[in-house]
C-alpha cells in the first residue's frame, strides 16, 4: 500500500533510499509474464527501470530471474518525474531501442503511486495499442492474445505488435529467485546506464519543475464504518433502520425498497 512506503510529504515524492531496492510487486508480475512467454518461444527480455543509482539492484534481480538485459534510466534531471514525464522518458528510450515488433509489459500500477497511468500513457506516447489488466498473455503468429477479467466480464482480446500490456496484480504469481541466478547476475552484469543527454532531452529539462502533476498529500482511504445499536420497540427500530439506511440497503441489493411498506401491510 502506497501510504506504507517511506513517503516525503514535504516534496510529495518517495524517499527512494529508504525503500531499499524493492522490485515493485506489480513489475515482478510483469516480468514473470515475460519469463513465461520466453519459456515457450524465443524472446529477448530487456528490463527497464527509472530511478536513482541504487535502482540497479532491481535490474540485477530482474536478470537473476532471467531477463537478458537491464537498463537504468537515471539522471538528476529526471528525478521527481510524474507519471506523464515518466511515460515520456520511457517512450524516448523505447523508441530509440526498439523497432518492428516488440511487446512492452508493465505492472498495472506501481506501489509508489498506484495511479496505473504509466502503462496507458506510455502506449499513447509510443502510439501503439495497449491492453490493461491482462490476466494471461500469449503471442500466437505475431498477434498478442490477452485474457482479462474486468467489470464482471471475461474477455479475450487480440492485438497487433508492437503493443503494450499491463499485467493484473492477481495474475502471474512471481517465482522465487534461485541463488544461482543471483550469483550469475552479478558475474557479468550487463546493465546499461542511460542519462538525459543520451535520451536527447533538452538541456534545460528538469522533471521536478516540468511535471504538470503536483502531489499535495498521500493517505490511505479511511473506511467510514460505524457501529450503531438501535434500541427500543421492534417496530420503532425497524422504521428507524429503513429511514436511516434504506437507500444503502436498496443500492446494495440493486432493488428499490419501498420503505414503510410494512406499515401499510
Amino acid at each position, binding site marked *: 500500500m502506497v501510504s506504507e512506503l517511506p513517503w516525503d510529504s514535504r516534496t510529495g515524492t518517495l524517499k527512494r533510499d529508504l525503500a531499499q531496492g524493492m522490485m515493485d510487486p506489480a513489475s515482478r508480475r510483469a516480468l514473470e509474464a515475460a519469463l513465461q512467454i520466453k519459456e515457450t518461444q524465443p524472446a529477448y527480455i530487456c528490463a527497464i527501470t527509472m530511478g536513482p543509482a541504487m535502482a540497479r539492484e532491481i535490474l540485477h534481480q530482474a536478470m537473476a530471474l532471467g531477463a537478458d538485459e537491464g537498463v537504468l534510466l537515471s539522471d538528476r534531471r529526471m528525478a521527481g518525474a510524474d507519471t506523464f514525464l515518466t511515460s515520456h522518458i520511457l517512450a524516448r528510450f523505447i523508441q530509440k531501442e526498439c523497432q518492428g515488433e516488440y511487446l512492452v509489459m508493465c505492472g498495472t500500477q506501481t506501489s509508489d503511486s498506484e495511479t496505473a497511468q504509466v502503462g496507458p500513457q506510455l502506449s499513447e506516447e509510443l502510439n501503439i495499442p495497449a491492453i490493461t489488466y491482462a490476466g494471461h498473455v500469449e503471442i500466437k503468429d505475431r498477434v498478442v492474445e490477452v485474457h482479462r477479467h474486468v467489470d464482471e466480464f471475461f474477455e479475450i482480446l487480440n492485438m497487433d505488435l508492437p503493443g503494450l500490456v499491463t499485467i493484473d496484480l492477481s495474475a502471474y504469481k512471481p517465482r522465487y529467485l*534461485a541463488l544461482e541466478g543471483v550469483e550469475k547476475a552479478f558475474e557479468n552484469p550487463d546493465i546499461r546506464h542511460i542519462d538525459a543527454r543520451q535520451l536527447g532531452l533538452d538541456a534545460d529539462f528538469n522533471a521536478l519543475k516540468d511535471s504538470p502533476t503536483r502531489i499535495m498529500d498521500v493517505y490511505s482511504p479511511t473506511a467510514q464504518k460505524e457501529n450503531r445499536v438501535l434500541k427500543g420497540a421492534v417496530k420503532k427500530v425497524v422504521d428507524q433502520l429503513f429511514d436511516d439506511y434504506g437507500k444503502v440497503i436498496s443500492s446494495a441489493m440493486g432493488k428499490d425498497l419501498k420503505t414503510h411498506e410494512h406499515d401499510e401491510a
Partner: protein
Amino acid sequence: MDFNPCMKHQLIRKTVREFAENEIKPHVSLLDKESRFPWEIVERMKPLNFFGLQVPKEYGGAGLDTISYAITIEELSRVSAAMGLCVTVHNSVGIFPILQFGTDEQKKRFVPAMARGDRIGAFCLTEANAGSDAGGVETHAVETQDAFVLNGTKIFVTNGGVCGTVLVFAVSETRDKKKQASVFIVEKECPGFCVGEIEDLCGMRANPVSSLFFEDCRVPKTNVLGQLGQGMKIGLTALDTGRIGIAAQALGIAQAAFESSVSYARERQQFNTPLSKFQTIQNYLAEMATKIDASRLLLYRAAAFKDSRRPFSGEASMAKLHCSATAKDVTDLAVQIHGGYGYSKEYDVERYFRDAKVTQIYEGTSEVQKMVIARTILSQPS
C-alpha cells in the same frame, strides 16, 4: 574499509528472507511441536539451490561466496533454526569435505545429487565416548579385498534421520598396527547401515538428529575420502567451515529474538507505559543489538578470510564462540522481556530460547573454540 553490504549480498538476503518468511514461517511452530522434518519445504527449496550453496556450477550448485553462504544460513535460521541447521550441515560438513578432499571421480559421483537436494548430507564424528576428543573414536574400519567393513555407532548426528550420503569418521590399522583415522563416504543403501531412533532434544526439534549404526557395513574402497589416514585433517577442515555455518545460524536465532523483543517492547504496556519507555528494557535492547552487531562483524570477517584463501580457523572459532554466546544471551533476555508470555509456546521466543543453547555445544563446544583460538594465538611467532 566499507561496512556496507554490497548489492549482491543485499539481494541474497532479500531473496532468502522472502522465501523463508512466505514458505517456512507459517509452519515453524507446528513443525517444532510435532518434531517433524518438512520434506514438502525441502522440495520447494531444491530448485532455489539451497542444497548446493557453495558447490561450483559444474556440479549443479549456486557457486556462492562464503559471505553469501553465511547470510543465507542466517536468514533461514532467523525463521527456522532447524531448517538453517539442516542446510548448513548438509552444505558445510556434508558436501564441502568432498569438494575439498575428494577425487574428481568422487565429486562427480556424489556432489550433483547432494547439490540438487536429492541426497541430504551428514557428518558423523561424535560417539558415546568421543566428542570434543576426536581421538577417542571407536568406530573402526577393516580393510578387505574390495571394501572396508565398518562397525560402530555414531550419536547425535544432525540430519541423521533424513540423510542420503554420510561422511563417517572411523579408525583403521596400518600395516604396522598403528591406528589411523579416515573419513568414509557411506550411502544410506550400503548394507549394514541403519538409522537409530530420533533423539528427543531440547531444541531444533524439526531436525531429525539421530544415532547411526554401522554393522558390518561394507563400503567400497573408492569411497575413502581423500586418502587413508587423512581423517583428522579432513575433520578439522570440515569443522572450521562448519563453524561459520553454525555461527550464522546462532546469529539468525539472535536476530529473530531481538526483532520479537523490539516489537513486543513497543506494544506491551505496563503501568500505562510501553515497555520500550523503561530504561531497564532499553538497556536490554541496547545490549542485545550490540552483541548481535559484534557477532555479525566477526562472522563476516571469518567468511571473508575463507573467501580470500587466508587461514581462518581462529577467526571461525571466534565467530562461532561469540555468535553462539550472543544467541544464548539474547534469547534469554528476549524471554525476560516477554515475561510470562516468553515462557509460553504461544510466542516464538520460547522456541528461540530452546534452539539457541545447542549452538554453544555442537560443531565444537565453546570450550573447544577457546582451545582453537588459543592455539592460533600461541602458534604465532612471538
